[in-house]
């Protein structure tokens, strides 16, 4: 029997005959003030990811479950959740790797929960905007002068940091962000570096005003988990460390040659 599901033909992969229990974090603000865990027994299909199991629940067991997803291929960054306590993209986490279960699914840590597995991310969006993640020029050159050229080596300087999909796994993994909600946090700093290190950009000074501050980069203690959980190998911890190095050099430069600072 063909199973109809938003996940398309993936759910038609053969059932393995096994089942697994998903313990899903439920929070329905109109019903409860404290979250509860609800257990669902889900069949295991070959090559199913946790997101497929959630879709199975939504389609066949309990239509009231709320969560975010879109691409089902690790691109959109919307399906991040805590799976057995680890921040994961649920579309890239195979159920079979978690057997025999139970599999505990919770919303991303360190964020307020709107409902069930849906978190509130305004804080992130505002911080992202505060570091001006776009190319800033002192003066734009006229159109007829053509495009800004870049060598492969110049591209390599920042390319890694441009791979971020804003999935927020790094924020969920960062205890400093949990303790200090004001901390700018891994992905935003990595994205600021993506532009700071771009040969076409001249906005580092403006971004420094936000980032070279206690709440900007200096609360980071290099726990390093952000880089461990990142599904895109952005390595935000490296972005922050290198930011610390360049800020420190700048600090000494200002100290020794106060006249040279702009």
């Amino acid at each position: 029997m063909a199973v109809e599901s938003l996940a398309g033909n993936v759910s038609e992969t053969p059932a393995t005959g096994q089942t697994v229990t998903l313990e899903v974090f439920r929070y329905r603000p109109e019903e409860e003030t404290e979250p509860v865990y609800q257990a669902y027994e889900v069949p295991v299909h070959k090559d199913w990811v946790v997101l497929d199991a959630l879709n199975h629940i939504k389609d066949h067991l309990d239509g009231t479950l709320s969560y975010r997803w879109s691409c089902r291929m690790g691109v959109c960054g919307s399906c991040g959740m805590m799976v057995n306590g680890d921040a994961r993209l649920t579309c890239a986490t195979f159920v079979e790797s978690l057997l025999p279960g139970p599999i505990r699914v919770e919303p991303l840590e360190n964020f307020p929960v709107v409902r069930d597995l849906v978190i509130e991310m305004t804080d992130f969006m505002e911080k992202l905007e505060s570091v001006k993640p776009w190319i800033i020029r002192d003066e734009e050159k006229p159109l007829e002068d053509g495009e800004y050229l870049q060598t492969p080596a110049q591209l390599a300087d920042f390319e890694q940091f441009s791979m971020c999909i804003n999935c927020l796994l790094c924020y969920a993994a960062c205890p400093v962000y949990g303790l200090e909600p004001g901390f700018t946090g891994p992905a935003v700093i990595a994205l600021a570096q993506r532009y700071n290190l771009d040969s076409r950009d001249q906005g580092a000074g403006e971004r420094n005003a936000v980032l070279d501050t206690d709440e900007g980069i200096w609360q980071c203690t290099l726990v390093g988990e952000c880089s461990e959980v990142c599904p895109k190998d952005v390595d935000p911890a490296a972005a922050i460390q290198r930011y610390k190095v360049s800020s420190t050099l700048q600090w000494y430069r200002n100290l020794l040659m106060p006249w040279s600072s702009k």
Partner: protein
Amino acid sequence: MMKRTIEPFWWSLFGAGGTLAALFIPITLFINGLAIPLGWLAAPDYENVLQMARHPLARTYLFLLISLSFYHWAHRFRFTLYDGLQLKHLNLLIAVICYGGATVGTVAAAYTLINL
């Protein structure tokens, strides 16, 4: 001129101390604290050690190693208290105790090494 935060200064001491400590403390501790007391290595002659330690380069090295190790501790421990025990409200007190302690240790190291 932008002087927004003093963190870069503390961080540079932390980093320098961490590097020196990582390179030199394990072997120094092993030699002086274990190998010689346990007789695995013969204790070097007193006069020799004194002469060696008095060399200006040795004094500089010892001063940097000891002082920066203290600052390395101060910075790390400050954040460990701050985050690990969530003592945010004692921020200033913690900073004064940690960096202050390292500074006292630095003065003691300078005094000891000059009078060696």
